[in-house]
């Protein structure tokens, strides 16, 4: 066999390995997507970025549902307090990203419980509303207005987000689905 033919077989071997490698990778990727259209459980949980949920609860809390001293604290919460408790702009961005994961988590449940569609659609609408509030907030920050002007949007966005986390947890609890403990830790 000539050296040129040896080169040819070397090239052919690499070519076949690459073609089969790429083909197998995308085949498995498509298969996994068919099995888990919204990602598998671990991947979904990994996408949830951490937020201090006690702080979120404090921002979102309905004053009438709280004890007297907490109630007083919420009423006197300044825009700066809200901003600090949420973790500034980073906290807002995390909240925005987590919204889409919450919607995916419900679609994940829907693979076994088709009736979860209603909650999924409701959550999707909520997620859009959070996006809208965050959009207003960013616009306010860009225009250089004081943070007090944006406090209303921020508090509403946090309230909706917090409500979404409770709805997802409730859905997992009602369905007695595996992974509830992981989710409770993540949310």
């Amino acid at each position: 066999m000539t050296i040129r033919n040896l080169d040819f077989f070397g090239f052919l071997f690499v070519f076949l390995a690459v073609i089969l490698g790429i083909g197998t990778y995308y085949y498995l990727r498509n298969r996994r997507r068919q099995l888990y259209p919204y990602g598998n459980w671990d991947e979904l949980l990994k996408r949830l970025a951490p937020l201090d949920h006690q702080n979120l609860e404090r921002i979102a809390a309905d004053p009438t549902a709280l004890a007297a001293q907490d109630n007083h604290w919420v009423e006197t919460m300044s825009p700066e307090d809200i901003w600090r408790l949420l973790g500034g702009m980073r906290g807002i961005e995390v909240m925005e990203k987590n919204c889409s994961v919450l919607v995916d988590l419900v679609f994940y449940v829907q693979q076994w419980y088709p009736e979860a569609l209603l909650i999924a659609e409701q959550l999707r609408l909520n997620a859009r509303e959070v996006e809208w509030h965050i959009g207003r907030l960013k616009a306010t920050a860009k225009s250089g207005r004081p943070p007090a002007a944006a406090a209303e949007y921020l508090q509403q966005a946090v309230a909706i987000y917090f409500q979404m986390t409770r709805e997802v947890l409730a859905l997992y609890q009602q369905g007695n689905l595996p992974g509830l403990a992981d989710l409770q830790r993540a949310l």
Partner: protein
Amino acid sequence: MHLSRTVFAFWAAGLTGHIVLLVVLLTRHRARTFPVFTTLIAANILNSIALYEIALRGSAHTYFIAYFAFASLDLVLQLAVTYELARHVFCPTGTWAPDIRKGFLLLVLTSLAIAFVLACLPSPPEKTILRTLLDRGNLFSSALQCELFVGMIAFSSTANLPWNTHVARIAQGLGFYSLVGLITEAGHNILAGTSIAYQNVTYLRMSTYLLCAGYWIVMLWLPAPAPQELPEEAQRQLFTLQRRVEYDLRKLRALKR
């Protein structure tokens, strides 16, 4: 020119397979969806009959020239079938997505360059120019088809575009044939044309093609799974969602201004 029993058996099986496949395409109304693929099968029937006649009555040189001409037509038609399948996957509504079109063009150019390099590399033993050209051409065609199919799978997966059942079956058959063809054509390019090994490699390629033709006959005869109808409730919800999204988008646009 004398035809051995084995070659005759392959010829008869190939012709029968193509005729059955053409009948399936026409009677199951697949020809309307896949006109180029139907043309390829019809051209293969014509090819089988014409080559048989030339093999019996003409000289070896005439046969070879006719074979070369039909092989060139086959290459052009196979590429056209690939384009037909790509159109089904990437522009189901008749319009190519701009990002896909650019990527697809890049894929074609890269594939052409790699297949050309691969086809130029082997150094065949003493053969006529026409035979060398034919072997290199077949290798080029197989490599190109393999690259295009893998590229299409990757693109469709990235762009999240589904493959219609029949499109996927035709592509699977052609892809498998091209992959085996790549190996057999590599053998053809380094073996002497008169050796037994060369002939065996040819039989392997022919058997693979017959297998693919059988697969197409069955798969194209079977109806594609009926698409699931969207329940009325879901339709209503989607409509409401779309209205709500439109409303939200209007608000967001107003905010931007």
